[in-house]
């Protein structure tokens, strides 16, 4: 009896075991391969920057803070005039 490779049943309707088994194995292998490649593609590559991170401490005094404190600073200068 000659069957085409893609044919999973013989003309009487019985399954051709060997081909189905092969198909199953092939499916399993390709499934694992697909999963593995998905895992690899999903990895996020994190590497340390080559330049040092510099934070300018001068921004510690922001203009908005200076504006908020201005009134209190003037009060202090007026009330303790002998040290200013």
């Amino acid at each position, binding site marked *: 009896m000659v069957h085409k490779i893609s044919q999973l049943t013989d003309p009487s309707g019985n399954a051709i075991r060997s081909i189905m088994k092969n198909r199953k194995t092939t499916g399993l292998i390709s499934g694992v391969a697909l999963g593995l490649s998905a895992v690899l593609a999903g990895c996020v590559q994190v590497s340390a920057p080559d330049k040092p991170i510099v934070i300018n401490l001068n921004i510690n*005094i922001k203009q908005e803070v*200076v504006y908020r*404190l*201005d009134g209190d*600073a003037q009060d*202090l*200068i007026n009330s303790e005039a*002998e040290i200013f």
Partner: protein
Amino acid sequence: MFEFIRKNKAVAIVGGLALTAIVAMPVMAQRDPAYAAARSSGAIGEKPDGYLGYVTAPSGSVKALVEDLNIKRKAAYTRKAQETNSTVEQFAFTSGCNLIKRTVAGEKYQAPDGSWQTRTSADPVRDSRCP
């Protein structure tokens, strides 16, 4: 007496204010003469950080005077920083903005680039963050 006050409320208020002014006068302490002299001679000046600095190499007495004032300033800044929920540096800097603004012609102040400038009638050169 009370009858008089009741009848002349306005006069009493003015009189009370005048009395307060006379009593308060000696409390308003003025600059120490040695400090005033060092300021007007340009030996010392105001810095943007809120403290006094030496424009020229100071004598022993001027150095002692400036150090004493800067310690007192730092104590005042620390107290006010706590009250206003800010840092000592922030409060001192804001005070420095005002102190440079209040210098009078002939006095010295430090510009943001670190150079000492003599105050003229023109606006002083201050940090861009100053109000």
